[in-house]
């Protein structure tokens, strides 16, 4: 049963292909700003404040929960400024490229047995490929701003994202070898029906066997998101705001949504690959109820991973550029290669 048939079953009408496509796109288009709002409010505004012994926003809405909506409205009112020497077309398109890259990741994230926009055979490979598109947007922004800080920021971002693309992909390889598939949906079922030494009480969430991969994945995600401690591309105290420095109003809002939307997407990918995704190891995985409970289960796991990601962000000081490169090439990549070899050996033996 596909998502389309479920939908037509619920609505009791035959939904044509193009209509389901539009509905699905609409759902993602709603999910990204919501995800950005949730992560931005819960972690950036509240948890970070608590970690620093302060309250954070308290005025707009209960416990300041409407603060980001207010900020969003504020951004929309601002003037859309183009620097005088900017390359106008490229400057205008850059935030969109970043946002489209984020949008495309959501397409393959499964939230239930049928609740997925598109179940691709190449699943996780697709997600990592489209996530790398955002670099093009960042470089476009850095170049088109005609600003030296933006240019330096763009260059730093490119160097960093290329370096951490490798550990990101290699960390996933361990999971792929263990599950024997790239398809995210099948990775979920493999974990839910898996067994640890013949005991299937809690399935086999890959965080238990692939904890090295999980660690490398989280570090690489941190760098991909250009978050502290890897925030040299946007470091305020060094280069003002990097490639974002000339952006105002809704274009800056696009970058913000892209950043937190991608954080959510990567947390979801980690939850799917290492924590068992939408499934629980008990019960019938094909049951329709998982389409409704699944997203909630996934959301809980996503928030757990996001908490880790943002905890790193609020805790560690910024690295230097050479330390960043050394960490990637001399530590993370060899470690992930070792992880692949060990996983491969165990896969053949067991």
């Amino acid at each position, binding site marked *: 049963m596909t998502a389309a048939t479920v939908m037509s079953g619920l609505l009791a009408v035959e939904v044509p292909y193009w209509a389901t496509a539009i509905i699905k796109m609409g759902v993602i288009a709603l999910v990204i700003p919501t995800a950005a709002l949730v992560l931005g409010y819960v972690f950036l505004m509240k948890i970070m404040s608590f970690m620093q012994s302060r309250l954070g926003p308290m005025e707009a809405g209960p416990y300041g929960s409407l603060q980001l909506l207010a900020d969003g409205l504020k951004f929309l009112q601002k003037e859309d400024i183009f620097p005088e020497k900017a390359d106008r077309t490229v400057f205008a398109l850059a935030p969109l490229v970043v946002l489209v890259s984020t949008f495309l990741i959501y397409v393959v994230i499964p939230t239930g047995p049928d609740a997925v926009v598109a179940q*691709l055979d190449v699943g996780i490979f697709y997600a990592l490929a489209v996530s790398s598109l955002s670099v093009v947007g960042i*470089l476009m922004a850095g170049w088109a701003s005609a600003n030296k800080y933006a240019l330096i920021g763009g260059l730093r971002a*490119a160097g960093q994202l290329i370096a951490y693309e490798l550990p990101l992909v290699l960390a996933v390889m361990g999971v792929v070898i263990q599950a024997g598939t790239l398809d995210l949906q099948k990775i979920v079922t493999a974990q839910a029906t898996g067994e640890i030494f013949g005991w299937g009480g809690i399935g086999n969430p890959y965080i238990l066997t692939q904890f090295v991969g999980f660690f490398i994945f989280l570090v690489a995600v941190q760098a991909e998101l250009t978050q502290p401690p890897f925030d040299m591309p946007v470091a305020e105290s060094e280069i003002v705001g990097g490639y974002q420095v000339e952006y105002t109003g809704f274009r800056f809002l696009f970058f913000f949504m892209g950043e937190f939307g991608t954080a959510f997407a990567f947390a979801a990918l980690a939850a799917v690959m290492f924590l068992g995704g939408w499934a629980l190891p008990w019960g019938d995985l094909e049951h329709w109820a998982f389409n409704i409970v699944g997203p909630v289960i996934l959301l809980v796991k996503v928030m757990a991973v996001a908490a880790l990601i943002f905890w790193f962000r609020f805790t560690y000081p910024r690295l230097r550029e050479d330390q960043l490169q050394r960490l990637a090439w001399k530590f993370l990549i060899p470690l992930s290669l070792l992880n692949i070899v060990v996983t491969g050996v165990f896969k053949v033996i067991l």
Partner: protein
Amino acid sequence: MIAEHVAFGIIAAVMVASALRVVTTRDIMHAALYLVIVLAGVAALFLLVGAEFTGITQVLIYIGAVIVLFLFGIMLTRSDFDQDTEPDHKRKFPAVLTALLLLAVMIGALVDRFEGIKLDANLPDGLTPQTTAQVSDELFSQYIVPFEAVSVLLLAALIGAIVIARREEGG
């Protein structure tokens, strides 16, 4: 099959237009960005014929890595915003000659292989589009020797590049 034909037409038209802009635009940054559209079009064509894995690889390698290196190089070497750098035409003749030779070879190869062959639009019965697992099975059994040869070639190129870069650095 009509939807695929329309999609092919649109993608091909966009690709040809962008490819022309790559070579006619005066701004090297724009040329690189138009190249992104052309390469994305290639990926879309792969997806259109059901070659998912190849299409996604195209995106990851060409747009995610090769183009990023291009942009990186352009930004490192041409950070003069005020100056309108005119491309020079000193090596026009060898460039035209190379392009024509390449065109001749490609046309020759295509005609030689596909002349008079009409591919069936529908897959024959019992044949499904290849999955990633099938691709990897073939790659690591039937085509293992060329695969390893390419790996060694790439490794040699990699080491060569590092050696050249380091020598210049040492002065």
